[in-house]
């Protein structure tokens, strides 16, 4: 039968059909991809696929390039480290060249940033990003960016800057579309970036605002109040700090009512309050006294909070603000060698490869700046011009408020506000998913803002980042300011994210302004979700004249390190201790250092910037050791404790005392609070960052510090249902625990318990690709050191850029000499010698000179960009 000719024919024919099917299948997969599988033939073709990304790994060569849109020749030079200097005949050309440079070296980063902000990440990376896209589309960065662009007059400097910058990016995109030398991510996914628009830049600006300003603290408060009870929650996460603080603005303060929130991008800021606003202390004291105590959130609200926390805690790191960010201080007069003013700034942000920063100097008539820029945005964010230098730290005020909307099943898509039912605005989106079906999303919006969940209850968010903010225009004015008056005037229009702008100028003046919107509610407890029926709405913001600020203080020093910028007598609510205000440990260290010295040099500021002295240890360790005196200790425990005697509180990586201190404090904190957490069944899993007991909970750190120093019999030291005990008893147990755990982890020899064996630092790739990051590497520092390290035991956030600017000279006008360094490199291409070439210098606390503002291109490697 099988040898029958007909059967043979059938078999041969089948073989041809199957072979053709296989060929077709292979051709389809290799040429077009299938589902999430990329077109492997095209992708891996050595001549035109992802391999061509290797071209971007080569160092640039001197050449002449034609860029449409330029009006005259622009020279770009690169030094050996890849630091670029742009020399242009006008600002527009300079920013066009900057856009071209950013795209040349950071295209993947820029595209990821805009996709993240605009809810288009899943189209590139697949279904794993759908949750992020849904969240961002709900929150509305894209809506805000579009609104900002629509409101920006086309002949304004900011609009012209954005258009010039976009043209530069698109010039590069046109070039790479011809050469096919795409960054590997695009070639490998087959999803290529579209043209850049001003809205994209504004969306990237929104990303930064979100990272620095969007918090879920009220949701955490709701969950804590529901489980621990309101009294304990407000005692352990108080509105006002209970420990010693170092505000930079010591007052006197004036209550000037509240200013309205601007309704358009171009509205001039109200410097003084037009509205008398709520009584100054109503919102401040409501949580502290029994007088106007807020109600415990309902079970339905707790469910809604849980649903929102579940979403946000699953988002990529950085999408929700979670750590204090940055140091910046200034000194002048006798504090600086030779007089003049000196500024130091080191923003603490996720330390990634590539870095968030791209270093550049730009020279054009009337626009001479040097410092660090953000790929995706025109200009520079931190640096100096010919007359002033500035750096930023996050103010940490509460800028996110949640509202529980009154809804009815009988009235779908409506909410009750100020006495009547109103329709919700609706926005529809389609989320493209690479390798999957598109998802449809409808976002509803009330007067407060977008509805973030309808699980349990309908909750909307009123976030200051959703208010159109003319940040590009403000930064352009800051970049061209000549003195504090112009600097201060420019910042009057800054709305979000609220930032401490720290200032030093060529005449030896110093200052700081915490510019931005501080929402003030007329009634209620803004640290909890509030009723959305109207009474608790945001009534306005703190007038610009009343925001924290300081200028040429008598002490010749201003330091901002995310500490609460004002004292407890400040007449406005600006957030609680859980709002990521640093417990003033870094600020305390900075003031102690700066106040104790005079005639400081750049090296003095560098020493402080890289200081790993733990101020909390310095504050409480002597008391802890005193409490342990007389306690029965095992020989190993005695040996361990002896390490702490005489320790200088520096969290050096080779310090065993540092390792023991960290472990001891963590255990002391946990042993104090965890019985309460366990007893109250706090649902920590909902949001580990906001609910778990750890040294990351700055409220708990400062409360425990306070009790240890002044209230060692606080009832909190006694676990529920246990016999009364005090701090000494808890500490004794914590020491035993710490020694046992270190013994188990690092062996029985306490002098070998180096901090660097417990703590590392990494700079992960923004692509999340394990092999493209740097580290983990043993490192010093911790949450409270000036050289901060966030995320234990492997820190991935910290000083993302260190800069020191010194103004020196005679005749009233000084010249700036500046140094800086960031952990990374100018190129995002892992094959490039400029990918991580700056990391070793950063790691060794070495600084590199910044190209001078207004200087001609000096690097040997040059691009001549011609129209």
């Amino acid at each position, binding site marked *: 039968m099988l040898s029958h000719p007909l059967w043979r024919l059938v078999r041969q024919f089948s073989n041809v059909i199957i072979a053709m099917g296989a060929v077709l299948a292979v051709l389809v997969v*290799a040429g077009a991809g299938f589902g999430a599988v990329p077109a492997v033939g095209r992708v891996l073709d050595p*001549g035109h*696929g992802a*391999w061509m990304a290797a071209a971007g790994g*080569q160092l640039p060569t001197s050449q002449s390039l034609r860029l449409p849109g330029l009006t005259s020749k622009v020279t770009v030079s690169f030094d050996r480290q890849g630091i670029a200097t742009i020399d242009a005949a006008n600002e527009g050309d300079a920013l066009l060249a900057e856009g071209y440079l950013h795209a040349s070296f950071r295209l993947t980063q820029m595209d990821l940033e805009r996709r993240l902000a605009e809810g288009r990440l899943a189209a590139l990376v697949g279904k794993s990003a759908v949750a992020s896209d849904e969240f961002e589309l709900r929150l509305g960065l894209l809506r805000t960016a579009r609104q900002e662009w629509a409101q920006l007059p086309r002949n304004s400097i900011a609009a012209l800057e954005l258009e010039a910058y976009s043209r530069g990016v698109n010039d590069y995109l046109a070039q790479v579309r011809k050469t096919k030398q795409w960054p590997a991510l695009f070639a490998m996914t087959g999803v290529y970036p579209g043209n850049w628009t001003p809205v994209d830049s504004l969306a990237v600006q929104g990303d930064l605002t979100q990272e620095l300003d969007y918090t879920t603290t009220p949701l955490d408060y709701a969950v804590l109040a529901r489980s621990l009870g309101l009294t304990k929650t407000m005692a352990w996460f108080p509105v006002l700090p209970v420990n010693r603080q170092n505000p930079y603005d010591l007052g006197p303060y004036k209550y000037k009512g509240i200013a309205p929130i601007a309704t358009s991008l171009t509205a001039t800021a109200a410097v003084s309050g037009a509205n008398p606003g709520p009584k100054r202390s109503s919102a401040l004291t409501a949580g502290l006294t029994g007088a106007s105590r807020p109600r415990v959130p309902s079970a339905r609200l707790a469910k809604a909070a849980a649903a929102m926390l579940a979403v946000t805690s699953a988002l990529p790191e950085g999408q929700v603000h979670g750590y204090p960010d940055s140091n910046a201080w200034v000194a002048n007069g006798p504090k600086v060698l030779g007089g003049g003013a000196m500024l130091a700034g080191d923003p603490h942000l996720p330390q990634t490869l590539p870095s968030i920063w791209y270093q550049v100097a730009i020279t054009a008539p009337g626009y001479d700046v040097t410092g660090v820029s953000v790929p995706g945005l025109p200009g520079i964010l931190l640096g100096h011009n010919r007359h002033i230098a500035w750096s930023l730290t996050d103010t940490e005020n509460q800028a996110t408020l949640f509202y529980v909307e009154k809804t009815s099943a009988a009235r779908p898509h409506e909410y009750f506000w100020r006495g009547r039912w109103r329709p919700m605005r609706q926005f529809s989106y389609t989320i493209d998913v690479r390798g999957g079906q598109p998802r449809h999303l409808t976002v509803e919006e009330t007067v407060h803002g977008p509805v973030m969940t309808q699980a349990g209850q309908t909750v909307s968010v009123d976030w200051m980042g959703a208010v159109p903010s003319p940040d590009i225009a403000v930064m352009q004015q800051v970049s061209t300011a000549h003195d504090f008056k112009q600097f201060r005037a420019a910042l009057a229009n800054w709305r979000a994210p609220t930032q401490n702008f720290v200032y030093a100028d060529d005449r030896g003046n110093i200052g700081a302004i915490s510019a931005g919107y501080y929402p003030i509610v007329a009634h209620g407890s803004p640290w909890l979700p509030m009723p959305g029926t109207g009474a608790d709405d945001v009534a306005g913001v703190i007038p610009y004249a009343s925001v924290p600020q300081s200028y040429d203080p008598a002490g010749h020093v201003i330091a901002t390190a995310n500490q609460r910028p004002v004292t407890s007598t400040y007449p406005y609510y600006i957030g609680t201790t859980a709002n990521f205000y640093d417990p003033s440990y870094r600020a305390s260290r900075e003031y102690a250092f700066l106040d104790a010295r005079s005639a400081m040099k750049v090296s003095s500021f560098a020493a402080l910037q890289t200081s790993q002295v733990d101020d909390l240890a310095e504050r409480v360790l002597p008391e802890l050791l005193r409490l342990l005196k007389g306690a029965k200790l095992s020989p190993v425990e005695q040996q361990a404790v002896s390490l702490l005697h005489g320790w200088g509180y520096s969290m050096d990586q080779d310090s065993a005392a540092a390792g023991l201190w960290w472990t001891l404090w963590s255990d002391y904190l946990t042993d104090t609070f965890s019985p309460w957490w366990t007893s109250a069944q706090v649902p920590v899993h909902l949001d580990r960052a906001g609910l778990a007991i750890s040294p990351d909970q700055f409220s708990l750190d400062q409360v425990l510090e306070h009790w240890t120093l002044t209230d060692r019999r606080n009832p909190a030291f006694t676990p529920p249902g246990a016999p009364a005990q005090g701090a000494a008893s808890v500490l004794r147990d914590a020491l035993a625990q710490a020694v046992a755990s270190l013994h188990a982890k690092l062996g029985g020899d306490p002098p070998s318990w180096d901090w660097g064996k417990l703590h590392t630092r990494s700079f992960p790739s923004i692509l999340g690709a*394990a092999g493209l990051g740097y580290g983990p590497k043993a490192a010093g520092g911790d949450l409270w050191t000036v050289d901060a390290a966030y995320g234990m035991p492997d820190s991935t956030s910290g000083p993302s850029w260190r800069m020191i600017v010194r103004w020196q000279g005679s005749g009233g006008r000084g010249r700036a000499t500046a140094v800086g360094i960031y952990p990374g490199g100018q190129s995002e291409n892992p*094959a490039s010698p400029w990918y991580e070439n700056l990391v070793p210098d950063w790691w060794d606390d070495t600084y590199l000179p910044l190209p001078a503002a207004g200087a001609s291109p000096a690097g040997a490697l040059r691009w001549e960009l011609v129209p």
Partner: protein
Amino acid sequence: MTKPVSRSELSRLGKRGSYRLGLLAPQGIAAAPPPKAFRPSFARERRAGSTTGWVLAMGAGIALVAVAAVAGLWFVPLIVGVITGLAARWGAWRLRATAPAVIVMCAAGWGAALCWYSARGLPIGASARAMAAIAGLPAYAAVAVAITLAVSVVLGLVGLWLGRALTPRPPR
């Protein structure tokens, strides 16, 4: 062995007395050659071809795949496979000879293209490492290179399959 016939003897053939010469060995019965060893086989007789031919053909295949890769013609390994499959029928070459040939041509072709770029100064190794990492694979250059070459080989082998299928074996 038979004695060679001289031309002078041939010219005497058919003439009187010639038979007496008796030296015209072909007229007799030659010694039978030794029997061949019996090797039973149902396969048809095959031609292996010369080694030089094989080397030249493969060299050409490698060059074709490499040049096409540089030109962005990623599907050429498949065509080389098809051609090899068709030629295999013509040359009666076994699969165990043609498949390795296709594997070598495709892998070496794309490998040669990568080497060429590397020789021009492109950081191919570092890029390979990055590609592997981005794909979520162990961040070793060898991983990306191996997968790249494997794709070329797969293209070649399905082409070979198609080429062979298009030229059915004649019935025995």
